[in-house]
């Protein structure tokens, strides 16, 4: 069976991820492509390293696909996330969502990337000219006061 939710150390093909959601019922396919940015708040990044808890990360990506299916029942989603060492402009993540109409495709792909940043066990290490550091979450809520990531309701 075709694998829709993948964490890999190999370069990602946008075309390959996108092809998985092509189907006659779709009138729209939305892609989100996350790439490595050189400057963050004025600080220059040389490269990034992504590490994943691969088996759990793929399960969580699948869960995001199920959440999208609940919100947009006619959607089909495929997500691939990269791990390992990435250079500036390399592709870190590709999301493809197909739906009958365009609005749902846009919304669902945005939902997917926001949820990836909340619940998928993947970590990014920034390498700068003067050091390196594992980055905590980027949602400005460093701790988990409830003991685990919040449910999908916080997105709404």
């Amino acid at each position, binding site marked *: 069976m075709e694998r829709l939710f993948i964490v890999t150390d190999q370069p990602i093909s946008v075309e390959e991820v996108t092809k998985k959601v092509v189907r006659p019922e779709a009138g729209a396919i939305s892609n989100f492509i996350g790439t490595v940015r050189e400057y963050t708040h004025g600080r220059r990044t040389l490269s990034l390293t992504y590490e994943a808890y691969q088996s759990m*990360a793929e*399960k969580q990506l699948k869960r995001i696909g199920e959440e999208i299916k609940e919100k947009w029942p006619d959607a089909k989603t495929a997500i691939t996330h990269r791990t390992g060492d990435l250079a500036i402009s390399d592709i870190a993540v590709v999301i493809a969502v197909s739906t009958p109409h365009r609005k749902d495709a846009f919304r669902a792909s945005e939902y997917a990337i926001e949820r990836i940043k909340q619940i998928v066990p993947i970590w990014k290490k920034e390498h700068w000219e003067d050091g390196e550091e594992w980055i905590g979450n980027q949602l400005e809520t460093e701790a988990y006061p409830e003991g685990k990531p919040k449910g999908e309701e916080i997105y709404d």
Partner: protein
Amino acid sequence: MINVLCFAHLKEQVGQEQLELARDELTVKELLQELHEQHSIDTDSLIVAVNEEYADVDDVIKSGDTVALIPPVSGG
């Protein structure tokens, strides 16, 4: 025996990919306390996954379960 997987900065801090706890059963809360006391791990921002699902502090971990420490994630 319970094996605990470590990732990202924790893996570097601990110096290995997994820790072994000589316990047959304990709660997530007790696990975090032990890790803090025995390995000086800052557990405030950690969550625990048991068998690849996020666990609550009161959940019970048993010998043979796959346990992982999950620092705040930063994928995407």
